[in-house]
């Protein structure tokens, strides 16, 4: 039987030691009325047969598309070192590091991951990650609620709608008030947000680059939030963060991110990586796993899970969250990715993404009837207005192997003609040229 080593002799030996006549006897407590009414599963298959089936399924998915899809999730180059190192069995077949002496590899890697995230975001503390960027935003809101003992959240509509709908689901049973401040042509409405913050506000939530790709300096907004006793939460892009003004420099209290762009494949939605960092006075509010540096009985440095008193296995119903693990392997991928590229490599990556996106924006805006949604600075993604319905334009181009972007009308009624276009360092100028020509052909 696959993966089960027990021979008939082994089974006899074990049954004899137990003093049982058969294996079935061990299940005697499950009475006849509790036995399965059916267990109608297919017969087992050989490894070769399963792989053949999965290869056939994989082949049913589109391949070789020239894609400009982003919407917060990007197809970056992943250095070969990432797969090679993270597929070492001692990393990926390990458990949560409850026995620190036998888990120094995982623990030191998490400590280094936390350090790298703090350095990227310019913040003081980080946790060992949560499920994804959306979960990180929700947990940041919970941190703010605990810190301020308030329940009102002011949220920019330019924050990814994917995260905002998650937030709505997550908070439905918690008596929170979510106040959404509309975007202005895809730009974050700083004045509107500032006005919406009041003495009951727990947190203000913004994103830069926002869902439309616009980059914003939130320094004044965060100062206003602080004056009102509210917590500032910003969602950032970790790749671009190597060149953009940092959440720390803007005075954010909590900075979160989707870490997928740091060495994780798109994989149809997961697993991804929720990055959480914060200012010093928020660290004890941080949920999930945190690794700390300490010393062993001989004074040698080592690492342990720390601040565990906040956690569910000790505090049960009063824990900071119900999260009992982290995306350790995804965090390791992000760390190996960052170390492989290094400071300069990440900056070049960000630089290429920005340059390609600006080239694409220019090529598209040269087409008749196409214009930028706004004149805000942008990084690797931007929104344009088309003279036609974006869904239909996408549909026609996709049939020819090019996905020109994401239709903003999917989440923003009234923006049916708007297209969100993303580039990465993998997007070549040639591909941009082909996309622009095809779109031009459609509009002509």
């Amino acid at each position: 039987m696959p993966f089960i080593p027990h021979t008939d002799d082994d089974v006899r030996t074990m049954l004899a030691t137990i003093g049982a006549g058969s294996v079935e006897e061990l299940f005697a407590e499950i009475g006849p009325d509790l036995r399965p009414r059916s267990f109608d599963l297919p017969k087992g298959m050989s490894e070769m047969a399963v792989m053949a089936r999965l290869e056939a399924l994989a082949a049913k998915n589109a391949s070789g598309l020239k894609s400009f899809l982003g919407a917060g999730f990007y197809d970056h180059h992943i250095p070969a070192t990432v797969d090679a190192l993270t597929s070492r069995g001692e990393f990926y077949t390990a458990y949560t590091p409850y026995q620190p002496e036998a888990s120094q590899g995982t623990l030191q890697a998490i400590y280094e991951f936390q350090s790298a995230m703090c350095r990227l975001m310019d913040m003081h503390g980080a946790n060992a990650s949560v499920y994804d960027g959306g979960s990180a935003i929700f947990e940041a809101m919970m941190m703010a609620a605990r810190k301020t003992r308030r329940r009102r959240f002011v949220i920019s509509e330019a924050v990814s709608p994917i995260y905002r709908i998650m937030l709505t689901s997550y908070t439905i049973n918690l008596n929170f008030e979510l106040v959404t401040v509309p975007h202005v042509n895809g730009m974050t409405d700083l004045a509107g947000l500032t006005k919406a913050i009041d003495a009951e506000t727990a947190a203000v939530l913004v994103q830069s680059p926002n869902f439309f790709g616009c980059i914003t300096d939130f320094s004044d907004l965060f100062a206003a939030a602080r004056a009102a006793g509210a917590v500032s939460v910003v969602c950032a892009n970790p790749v671009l963060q190597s060149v953009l003004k940092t959440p720390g420099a803007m005075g954010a209290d909590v900075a979160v991110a989707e870490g997928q762009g740091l060495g994780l494949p798109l994989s149809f939605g997961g697993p991804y990586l929720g990055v959480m960092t914060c200012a010093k006075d928020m660290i004890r509010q941080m949920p999930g796993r945190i690794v700390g540096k300490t010393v062993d009985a001989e004074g040698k440095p080592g690492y342990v899970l720390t601040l565990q008193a906040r956690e569910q296995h000790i505090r049960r119903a009063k824990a900071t969250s119900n999260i009992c693990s982290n995306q350790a392997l995804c965090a390791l991928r992000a760390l190996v990715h960052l170390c492989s590229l290094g400071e300069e490599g990440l900056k070049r990556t960000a630089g290429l993404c920005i340059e390609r996106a600006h080239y694409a924006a220019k090529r598209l805006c040269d087409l008749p009837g196409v214009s930028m949604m706004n004149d805000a600075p942008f990084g690797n993604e931007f929104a344009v207005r088309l003279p036609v319905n974006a869904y239909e334009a996408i549909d026609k181009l996709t049939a020819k192997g090019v996905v020109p972007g994401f239709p903003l009308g999917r989440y923003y009624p009234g923006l049916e003609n708007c297209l969100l276009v993303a580039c990465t360092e993998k997007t070549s100028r040639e591909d941009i040229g082909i996309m622009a020509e095809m779109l031009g052909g459609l509009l002509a």
Partner: protein
Amino acid sequence: MKTVFEKSRPGREGVWPDAPQNGPEAYIPAALLRSSPARLPELSELDVVRHFSELSRKNFGVDSNFYPLGSCTMKYNPKFTEKAAALPGFAGLHPVLPQLQGAGRLCQGALEVMHDLERLLCEITGMAGFTLHPMAGAHGELAGCMLIAAYHHAKGNVKKKVICPDSAHGTNPASAALAGYEVVNIESVDGIVDPAKLAEVLDDETAALMMTCPNTLGLFERHLPEIVAMLREKDALLYYDGANLNAILGKMRVGDAGFDVVHLNLHKTFGTPHGGGGPGSGPVGVSERLVEFLPVSRVKKLEDGLFVLDYNHPKSIGYVAPFYGNFAVYLKAYAYILRLGREGLVRVSENAVLAANYMRKRLEQHFQIPYNRTCMHEFVASAVEQAKSGVRALDIAKALLDKGHHAPTVYFPLIVKECIMVEPTETESLETLDRFVDDLIEIAGRAASDPASVQAAPVTLPVRRLDETRAARDMDIASL
């Protein structure tokens, strides 16, 4: 060992892409740019490879060590499933593709995996519907509690509390609390949920009981049928924590047994790697009366065989994940289920239970076994006898590390003093089980004859015992 930051040397070249023609300052106003470098490590590629190879050697994993961690089901992680998840047709697929007009056609293979796996999980558990969205076991618990809340709200039931037995995982009460419920604990009697104790707290305000069966003591909940009837009476739902599903595959289906909600830890029962803490995958199954509340989107097979995502479920609890859950993880579980098939899955539970009872029997002369009767796939021993000479469960755990075994779960569940919770799983050979038991017996002997030697453990690992108090007090959680 030095951190990767300490090893950094400015100017060392890593995996650099070509430089852009112009820097970001050509496109973005200076006020929006970073004013000081992020100070990420600068290393050669070989530096990076050596650093992480060295770190990996400081880790125990199932590939290198026996990992009898109770309630965690650390079985062997098949290698071919990794290859399957890395197929470019899966790994390269953008998650928003199916949101484009008619673009479900571009990801039929992925949608078919989701549809097929949901149906397999329904058959394995006897539930009416499944969602693959929750991204970990605890996330599944939260989604499950949200489903319970949605059910009661829709019926106009006023429900305020969720009952958790004292043998429950710590995540159960935390998840119920996060779904807005007050948590009521009940004590076990003889290690299992007692209908009389339940009757004391069960009332019209009870939304649900969260149960693990077999529970965290490795015991089957014998009063299950009676408990189901009691809950039905109050229109309270029964939640199944699937962490211990490995014990009952093909022997009991939680749907048939009367459970309304179940979360499965695919990384446990279906052998996807734990990754040092994650990613996992925590699909949630529901009985017929809860299907309409499942998260969106839901995958559907049309009559012409086409798979589509269906967002039109007005009573849905909404979105718990950005997309469709940890696709690459559940893809591995899917491959695992196909490989084992019906007979293989039944054998999983049979051999897991056989191995646990064998170890329990071999250890009973040397350790106190608080509930020494037929167990399921795990059992609980206690070091109370050893503690009399000053050797505690934690010392025994550390001594096992010196022997090359990962330690069992200790001090959990909280209701057993000096608790040592052993779960061997079905994939460990008799030789491995015997070696572990022999080593444990040897440590028990030393606890009596030379307790100091056990208290000093570990001595063979990269570090000796670590000062956890200092870590919390001085709090060095990042190299800044």
